[in-house]
């Protein structure tokens, strides 16, 4: 999928993550992560966001994530929702 505009999903409530996906000039996916659990899960969360986007064919994007201790299924769901909004797509596939 191609990032056409800014797409957002999620909140900064405890146990949630806010994901903002923006178009990028670069040829890769860049993730800027703030997290309450950065030391313990920072690398894992970044990798999960990138994996999730790549699985939908995203090649270029700038992602700003503010994490308040979300677990993996929440991170994935928020990333996908932000992606569908950013790509202006309504062909949702929630299950694998």
């Amino acid at each position, binding site marked *: 999928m191609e990032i056409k505009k800014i797409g957002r999903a999620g909140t900064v409530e405890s*146990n949630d993550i806010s994901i903002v996906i923006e178009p990028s000039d670069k040829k890769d996916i860049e993730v800027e992560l703030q997290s*309450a*659990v950065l*030391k*313990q*899960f920072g690398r*894992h969360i970044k990798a999960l966001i990138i994996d999730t986007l790549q699985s939908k064919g995203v090649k270029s994007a700038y992602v700003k994530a503010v994490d*308040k*201790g979300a*677990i993996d299924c929440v991170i994935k769901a928020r990333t996908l929702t932000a992606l569908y909004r950013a790509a202006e797509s309504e062909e949702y596939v929630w299950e694998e």
Partner: protein
Amino acid sequence: MIKNGVGREIPEYLEHIGKLVPYENAFSIMPEGNKVGSKLKRQLPHKSKLISSIKEAIKACGLKDGMTISFHHHLRNGDYIINMVMDAIASLGIKDLKLAPSSLNPCHAPLIEHIKNGVITSIETSGIREPLGTAISQGILPNPVVIRSHGGRARAIESGELKIDVAFLGVPCCDEYGNANGFYGKSAFGSLGYALVDAKYADKVVLITDNLVDYPCLPASINQSQVDYVVKVGSIGDPKGIVSGAIRFTKNPRDILIAENAVKAIEASGYFKNGFSYQTGAAGASLAVTQFLREKMINQNIKGSFALGGITSQIVQLLEEGLFKGIFDTQCFDLDAVRSIGQNPKHFEIDAATYASPFNAGCIANYLDIVMLGAMEIDTDFNVNVISGSDGIISQAAGGHQDTAAGAKMSVVLAPLIRARIPIIVDKVTTVVTPGETVDVIVTDYGIAVNPRRQDLIDRFKEAKLKLYDIEELKEIAEKITGTPERIKFKDKIIGVVQYRDGSVIDVLREVDDA
């Protein structure tokens, strides 16, 4: 390095601290010698103790480089005293002080500057919150911090291990000759429990008040025979930060679930009967436990003996309804508790030594049946961390955790299994504060685990058909949801020691590696 009784590596000697005694077990140390005392002094008749400013009081006390000063934390996050006094000390050019408050709060962030400027070089306390905690965990303080429980601090003062040169104590109700209490005035906070020890043992005592009343200020929790100087200031604290209104009953469903599980455990424990005693904190789940316990007491016509601790409106209600005979109070958590201690003789103020010191003829914690405690982390050996986060940064307080866990017949640790993706039950806690041998029951939102040392409780809980988990099982449930956290990296430099209540060292704190 020596491996201590909870498997932590403890150095035999630490620069600026001295020889360290490794923790062995909860009751391994026998004290020797006598209590110390404050200096003998003379005051000529009818000489005023009022002094014009904090600065003048510091000069009059003869405060010098290298001395130890103390404060109490009854003003909690509303405290103005520590920052006011430290600013005055800094302006006088005095350096290299040891700061020994009963605890520190977020409002004490300005201390970071005084550390950078060399005014403070050591800290001994029960708790350190953000942002000071992060600064200390990053190695800002020249000498290692010493963390003690409330009982441990009282013991250290009484034994002379912690010698206080000058105590600066904020009081909301005080006369010009040094009689004071915490009950009345615009900054009233209730019990002066932690400060009473300092008032008794410091060489010089300065009271700082925003409410100077006509002589005599009665009741006199701190009395004139202990006090050298009295200073009047505009305000000793921000009322919003000192005490809250009556702390509300939690609506958080997870807290309620934990509390329901805890009450089931209490009911099945065999200790829930006429004459039982009880302590709890002011966190959501423990407040809910008190609420549910009240209903059980009424329904089953059970009347308790005493409640201990930090006191909330929930506990006051139990006293006023006749469900407990008395309250021993070292610290009031809300305005109802402040009101009650000021008017009800059965709501009794006690000092921290009477509350929890292991080395006297019997502290009240020793007489406790059931205590509800919290945790940042719990490990599969039941050791509890209440001082550092799982990111390795000092951010909490030891409080009375060690003391009541050791003293109570049944210590119950209440904790959610997961807190913002962090599993609470882990293989090894970041820092051991309370040894697993004194922790009996873990109650989470997912279920209950009992320390295998307490086969008696396991039998009773099984008889009551409570579903019990092995602590390893709870750990696995948590990690299945959160994933396994990466290990926190520390440098070799020791930035603090955590004492057990008896003065032995239960763990050390190391500088975090942020690289």
